[in-house]
């Protein structure tokens, strides 16, 4: 219980600080909506191509805006060396990781909750597949993205060019998550049966579990780098 309380405390601290300045969330939201607007101009919003490219557009908007948040999550802890303050506290260091994962997840979900309707409006897109299945895929895809992203953000935070380094090391590792999320979303948009996305959903779930478990073993070393 204490471990969970420490995680909740870290999430509380991050969200209070974030919603006071709205530094990360505003950048993520603006970027996500801008990506959708750019694609709305690039493609004919009423053409048949929209249905084919829309899953890719959605996940490009989600992941590219998410990178902005991930970049700041540990870099912010470098000001006044607050990360050292966390490391000195009597708390298992994986609590720091899970606190950051939950904060990043909440920020991404807020961004997605606003930018997805914007996409539907700008592309005049009628959602005909299962909304529940779409939400499941977005949940798993986002969790995979933030768990891997938070882990690598901690790794790259000590590098001076961390904002350049993070996308370079993150996207190759993220390929299975992006492919799984895009393929599942496309199937849902085409009103495919759940059986058609079960394989992708399993892949996303396994990836999420792996990258939620790996930090238990490695996060101590990552912080000491």
């Amino acid at each position, binding site marked *: 219980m204490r471990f969970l309380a420490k995680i909740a405390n870290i999430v509380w601290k991050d969200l209070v*600080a974030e919603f006071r300045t709205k530094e990360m969330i505003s950048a993520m939201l603006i970027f996500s909506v801008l990506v959708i607007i750019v694609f709305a101009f690039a493609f004919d919003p009423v053409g048949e191509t929209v249905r084919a490219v829309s899953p890719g557009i959605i996940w490009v908007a989600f992941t590219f805006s998410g990178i902005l948040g991930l970049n700041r999550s540990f870099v912010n802890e470098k000001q006044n060396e607050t990360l050292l303050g966390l490391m000195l506290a*009597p*708390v298992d260091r994986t609590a720091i990781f899970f606190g950051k994962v939950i904060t990043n997840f909440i920020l991404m979900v807020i961004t997605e909750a606003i930018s997805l309707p914007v996409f539907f409006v700008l592309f005049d897109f009628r959602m005909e597949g299962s909304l529940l299945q779409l939400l499941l895929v977005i949940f798993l895809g986002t969790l995979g993205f933030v768990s891997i992203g938070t882990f690598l953000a901690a790794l790259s935070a000590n590098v001076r060019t961390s904002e350049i380094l993070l996308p370079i090391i993150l996207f190759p590792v993220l390929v299975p998550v992006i492919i799984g999320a895009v393929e599942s979303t496309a199937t849902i948009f085409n009103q495919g049966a759940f059986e058609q996305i079960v394989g992708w959903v399993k892949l996303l779930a396994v990836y999420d579990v792996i990258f939620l478990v790996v930090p238990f073993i490695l996060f101590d070393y990552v912080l000491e780098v």
Partner: protein
Amino acid sequence: MVKTIGSKTVLKDINLHIEPGEFVSVLGPNGAGKTTLLKVLTLLTPPSEGQVYIAGQKITGNPLALRKKMGVISHNTFLYGNLTAYENLLFYGRMYDVPNVRQRIKEVIAEVGLQYSLNDPVRTFSRGMQQRLAIARAIIHDPDILFLDEPYTGLDQHAIGILNQVLLNLTNQNRTIYMITHNFEQGLHMSDRIIILVSGRIVYEASSKSLSLEELQDIYLKLVGES
């Protein structure tokens, strides 16, 4: 104890015993290994060879319990600029499982004289105010051992006075204090024992009572010059 970073041995044959309630000041030039030694003692990095015991326990045994006994004041404040003073103390109080944390915040904030700025964001504080709040943060869990890393850096006279008063109170409560400083006068005045670290080795140890400021300066310059 030995600490190696990469191919460089930063701490060599460190053999140090500090009694409970003792106040030890560590002096040394830049690059002597003072901060690395502090990082080992505060469990931020393990020693490469040898053993470290804190409060009679091996540091590898139950590090979380040992961290609860320690407070750290550094020239970095470990404070969140976008949070208020109260929110910072509440956050750290919860991290250290401080019982009745809201009452404890009132006590420590009064001790450092910031009760009228409790709800102001820390980013609006002067350097001296931030360092005073950092003192409150470090003692909120009433630590048995206090580590200080150049705590006087950037402090005004008021903040120096408050820090000295806090250290005096802790000394009177028989708390152990380990301070890295470049301030010979403060180090000599406050502590029981002076240690000089040069090139990763303890090259000098003496009781502060047996030294005058001039003697300490002469010894330090001689030892640093020899290295």
